[in-house]
């Protein structure tokens, strides 16, 4: 088992960026500047398209960071001992969530008339909307439900992150100085000693993790209902919410793999993030590529078989005309290529191949989020030309810059490897330490 046994180190492996990671910061700032220019230019030329590009990118970046944070809670709830070296890297995406929350506000309050076909003064072709749906499809209610759920989700995610970090901050405090030291002091206020704190943190994060999971599902479901399903007001799918958030879990894993390999290199974590850990991560990634294919198929086959016009239009728009190559690319990138690429042990353990297939999945995921929304506005004659232009890519770069900066913010302050272990896992590990043979048997799997 790839688990280091119970944290027996000569020194605490506190790995974070000491000083400023200049290259990364420069890259982040440059991306943000480019993105900001692109967004402003897009707004000036075609505000509808600018907001739509904004929405597609917001869905992408929110999904991947919420998915990654969710994984750090899932592995804790499932007591996944293998995940110790990657858990904090997953958690580090929590730094983007407050930014996602801020970026959500203009989307909610300003962009309505460019996005929702059922809102007053919609810019674009308006379809038939059954009158009774106004109870659900009205802007004030849409803003309220999205804002409340997403705010609570982000708040609980931050609380969960706080309790995951706190015991480590207490342990690593003595190595720090200056602003970081002051931050640690503030975050470890009322410190009651390592043992008590670890028990408290175990207890609190065990309480918060399931709450976070429920909020994650609810919040992303409502986002999917409003920002995907309602864009074609006659369309319905009971699975769209589940598909949307389970899909984000796959992207959360891809982004974990990419970030793990990047941080492994930049922070010299090779001694802590072992090939065995990458193997486990790769297996989970492979499994979720299959889960994506399953959920896609579960949704597709029912609609295909039913041949009900309002249901079919959604699928036909995405699988025909100029969109069909994109749809095929999504299928290839989210399932076919990573499935065959990650078969076997080697590709999962080799950083280059794992990163490659995770990156392929991320490309597919961006296209998939784009494909979920764009054909709803641009279909029929409007579908050509394909709208992946400087507006979409520029907005993407800006959001990517914000993500890079928020990750660097996290990584230059907090240890990127979780040092403490929740009580429940120590119980499990106690066995491994005393009896090293007990875990054998399944390891080759």
């Amino acid at each position, binding site marked *: *088992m790839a688990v280091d046994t119970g944290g027996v180190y000569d020194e605490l492996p506190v790995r974070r960026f000491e000083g400023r990671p200049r290259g990364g910061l420069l890259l982040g700032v440059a991306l943000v500047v480019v993105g900001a220019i692109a967004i402003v230019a897009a707004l000036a030329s075609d505000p509808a398209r600018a907001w739509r590009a904004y929405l597609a990118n917001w869905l992408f970046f929110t999904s991947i960071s919420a998915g990654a944070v969710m994984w750090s809670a899932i592995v804790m709830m499932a007591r996944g001992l*293998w995940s110790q070296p990657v858990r904090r890297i997953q958690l580090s995406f929590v730094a983007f969530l407050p930014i996602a929350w801020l970026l959500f506000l203009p989307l909610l309050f300003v962009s309505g008339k460019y996005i929702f076909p059922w809102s007053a003064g919609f810019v674009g072709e308006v379809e038939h909307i*059954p009158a*009774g*749906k106004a109870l*659900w499809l009205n802007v004030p209610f849409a803003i309220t439900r999205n804002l409340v759920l997403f705010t609570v989700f982000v708040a609980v995610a931050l609380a969960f992150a706080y309790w995951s970090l706190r015991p480590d901050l207490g342990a690593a405090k003595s190595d720090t100085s200056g602003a970081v030291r002051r931050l640690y002091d503030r975050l470890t206020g009322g410190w009651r000693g390592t043992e008590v704190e670890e028990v408290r943190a175990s207890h609190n994060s065990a309480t918060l993790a399931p709450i976070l999971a*429920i909020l994650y*599902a609810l919040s992303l*479901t409502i986002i999917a209902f409003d920002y995907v399903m309602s864009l074609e007001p006659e369309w*319905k*799918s*009971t*699975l*769209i*919410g*589940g598909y949307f958030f389970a899909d984000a879990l796959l992207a959360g894993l891809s982004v974990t793999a990419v970030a793990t390999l990047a941080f492994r290199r930049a922070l010299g974590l090779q001694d802590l993030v072992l090939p065995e850990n990458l193997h486990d991560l790769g297996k989970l990634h492979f499994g979720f590529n*299959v889960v994506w294919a*399953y*959920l896609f198929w*579960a*949704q597709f*086959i*029912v*609609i295909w*078989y*039913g041949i*009900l016009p309002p249901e079919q239009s959604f699928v036909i728009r995405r699988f025909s005309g100029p969109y069909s190559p994109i749809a095929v690319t999504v299928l290839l990138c989210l399932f076919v290529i990573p499935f065959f690429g990650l078969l076997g042990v080697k590709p999962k353990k080799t950083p280059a191949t794992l990163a490659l297939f995770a990156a392929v999945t991320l490309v597919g995921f961006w296209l998939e989020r784009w494909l979920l929304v764009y054909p709803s506005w641009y279909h029929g004659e409007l579908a050509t030309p394909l709208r992946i232009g400087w507006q979409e890519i520029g907005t993407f770069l800006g959001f990517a810059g914000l993500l890079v900066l928020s990750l660097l913010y996290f990584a230059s302050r907090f240890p990127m490897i979780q040092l403490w272990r929740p009580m429940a896992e120590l*119980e*499990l590990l*106690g*066995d491994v330490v*005393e*009896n090293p*043979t*007990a*875990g*054998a*048997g*399944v*390891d*080759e*799997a």
Partner: protein
Amino acid sequence: MATVIRSETHPAIGSYEEVNHDILRLLSRPGRSYTILLAVTIALVITMFTAWGVQIVLGIGMSGLRNPIGWGVYITTFVFWVGIGHAGTLISAILYLFRARWRQSIYRAAEAMTVFAVMTAGLFPVIHVGRPWLAYYLIPYPNQRMIWPNFRSPLVWDVFAVGTYFTVSATFFFIGMIPDLAAARDSAVVPWRRRLYSILSLGWRGTNWEWKNFTRAYLYLAALATPLVLSVHSVVSWDFAMSLVPGWHSTVFAPYFVAGAIFSGLAMVLTLLIPIRKIYGLEAYFTPRHTEAMAKMMLLTAMIVSYAYACEAFVGWYTFEAAEQHGGYLLFGATGEYWWSTWLMVTCNFFVPQLLWFRSVRRSFAAMFVITLFVNIGMWFERYSIIVVSLSHEYSPWMWNQYRPSLTGMLIILGSFGWFLMWFLLFLRLLPAVSVAELKEVLPAPLRLYRRPRAVEETTRRPPVRGRGTEENR
């Protein structure tokens, strides 16, 4: 000073020897209560076949099925038993791949349950179609006898899905048992048992070469069985979702059915194992740790199922189509003449499992037993609601009708429980009910200075160890 190292997963088991003793002890002459229980289940099986016979002679009308409700309690019970069959493979294959080590002592019983549940489920399509002598029509073989199977029909997919699932889980069940059957062979005293286990254990001697191939086969079968856990109930759900019946035509059905199946299967495992633990003194093998882990999975799946209820109800309303709003089993079901069925399902599958948030409930055998009974009932009524309520209220009002299960139908369902329990009881006495070999993997290895805690009571009915064969097999 001898130190006793305890397994973290099964702390009350002292030694390898104790495992052999405790488990193989079950493969002996049963007591009176066992015989009585077996007789009761056989009586139920006879009842079932009698009722079925009556239905065959007098016609399918005896089942209470009539237009428009052509699918009634038989299909409900079919889906129920297929669902029950999911926990076994989940525990034996998926948890194996996830390295959950507590599974070792319970997976064998769960797997057996899976096989028997699928065997029970398999009866119902045959009962339902009315003319069992034509049951081979279910198996599509193109062009022969001018049957021309319609491969676009989900009913055909179902035959493939359930057939594959049965084959793979039965193979997995059998392969995993081979080393234990060898251990049983080596300690069997009754001649017919020794002959039986000799045949079944395929000449297993426990050589390195055999173990190597065994573990490989086991791993690959686990990997093959894992997607099947998802596929079977997905295909079963498509029996419904492919149609346009309001309430059935729903994209969430596949994952929703799978989650429900795992939920009900875990509940059934607990319903069976909690009394068995008590009766056969397997306290050391089935601990609060097990109920806790299974209860957590039940809680997760209950939440997924409840999420699906919420989505179904919401989208039913959101569609703003009269048929969906009135015909959907959730909205119409909650207020219409079948309100009791819908509310029973919501109560048993959403409200009652909320108790599983509490650790003390998860670790209490009595509480878990009661909760799992509720879940079993709730999951049967979930299928009843989906099938009967939806069919009773389709698009056009002249098709609205009610359905009342007949006495024949109820007797057959009751008998199916007898059929299932009969096989399970036979399994308990004929095959090793706990995996001896795999359990030893999670016990601490024997040490030189090891002090056996139960050294005293070795006199009674310890199976003779021939040439220390069983010990060396490990």
